[in-house]
């Protein structure tokens, strides 16, 4: 969620970022002393990104909600052992990526069709339908091409190993630095770089005809 702001002041943004980190430190300490409200505030700082990651790696709202729940419950139960050796951001991402990797490893489905998501009532809807079309009159042909592209990309991502997919997701869709990706996945930046290279080479091979 972003605030509407016509003229963003970079100094103010930096200070807001610093204030955010200081705020997290206070919230973590409070949560470690049993302040549940502080933990819930901490959750609010990160939960949209966590839910987005879970939704795109699991493919269903129900599974995404389960991963979200498991991740934050695990964080709540173990926050006493958080020693500020890394940022809370890295720590919570580490928890949720491990849960998503477990999910990906158990999953044994090759999706050839359009990415379909199940809602809470068991009905299905195309994930691409959720991307709003800003224009009043959408082009049906373009919509079809976009759906096909989305389906092909989704299918190609399914063919990556869980680790390759995770590195690609975190780098390409979440914009994290590879150094951070390495910290989250308990590996080195160099390994994350090599994994990203392998993932993109595989994806290029799968999608060569679409360029």
């Amino acid at each position, binding site marked *: *969620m*972003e*605030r*509407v702001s016509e003229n963003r002041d970079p100094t103010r943004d930096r200070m*807001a970022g610093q204030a955010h980190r200081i705020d997290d430190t206070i919230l973590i300490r*409070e949560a*470690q*002393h*049993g*302040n*549940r*409200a*502080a*933990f*819930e*505030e901490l*959750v*609010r700082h990160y*939960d*949209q990104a966590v*839910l*987005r990651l879970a*939704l*795109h790696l699991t493919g269903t*709202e129900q599974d*995404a*909600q389960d991963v*979200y*729940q498991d991740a934050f*419950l695990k964080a*709540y*139960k*173990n926050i*006493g*052992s958080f020693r500020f050796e890394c940022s809370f951001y890295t720590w919570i991402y580490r928890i949720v990526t491990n849960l998503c990797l477990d999910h990906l490893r158990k999953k044994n489905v090759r999706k050839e069709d359009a990415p379909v998501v199940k809602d*809470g009532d068991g009905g299905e809807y195309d*994930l*691409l339908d*959720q*991307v*709003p079309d800003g224009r009043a*009159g959408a082009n049906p042909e373009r919509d079809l091409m*976009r759906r096909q*592209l*989305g389906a092909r*990309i989704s299918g190609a991502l399914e063919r990556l190993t869980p680790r390759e997919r995770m590195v690609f997701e975190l*780098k*390409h*869709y979440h914009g994290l*630095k*590879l150094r951070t990706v390495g910290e989250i996945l308990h590996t080195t930046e160099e390994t994350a*770089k090599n994994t*990203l*290279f392998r993932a*993109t*080479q595989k*994806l*290029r091979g799968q*999608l060569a005809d679409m*360029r």
Partner: protein
Amino acid sequence: MKCEWVRENITLQVYGELADDARHELEQHVARCADCAAELKVEREFHALLSAEREAEPSPNLLAASRMKLQEALETAEQGGFWRRLAFDPANWLRQVNFSPALASAILMVGFAGGLGISYEVFGHPPGPPATTKAPAPAEASITGIQSITQEPGSNQIDIKYNTVSTLETQGSLNDQRIQQLLLFAARNNYNSGVRMDSVDLLTKKPDVLQVRDALIYALQYDTNPGVRLKALDGLGGFVKDDVQVRDAVLQALVSDSNPGVRTEAMRLIEPVKADGSVRGVLMTLAAKDQSQYIKSQARTMLAQLPEID
């Protein structure tokens, strides 16, 4: 510069992950090598192709439902035992202190901790000179914890550092930063709902301050007292049109608040922005599935007033 090295690092170049010197070398090579320049072009086009498909964001409904489910689970979850056994809990201690409601002139009663040093004699030895202290006598303050205990070798003197809590008082206007900080603290952390209500009431007079608006959003989403949540809605209502974060918080309250009065007020506040895509989506869900007949009927009425989408 070998083409092989360039090919291995083109992906990192496109993602902006190359070190400055490596990036410079690569750019220099690509300027001279047609094959590598073509490869870079292909990689950039591929990157653009993958980025053309925007990731869908989780819907406000999914986020609100996930938060509610987590809140319920946290009520019965327990934290790990080690720190809770060892760490002193001043928040728990403060619940036993009687707080007075904040007055209209913004006088607040707040507790602070300070460190003190004091020497005591070893038990069993003849009494020595009176203990020296740099702080008020212990009778004037309450001890909250012991920081350290040290004894000089060969001496009967023991040094103990302990923390105390003393009550302080401050005065000021709503424009004082210090007063604002204390009000923000009280709105989020106080166990007494009356104090939280008073602080949120005062904070609604300063909603243009970002931290205040954040605190009002927090109160709306997490305060256990519906009166406090209603008061927070009062302060946020004017920002539903221009602040997306406020709008999302009000929508979440409309969808998932446990109090009908809060939901009704949230419904009233989103009326001016009912044409917004995310608001329309929530209204459609409420009109179809909400348990409350009033909310259902209001949502249907609002949707009927909107133009059809092609």
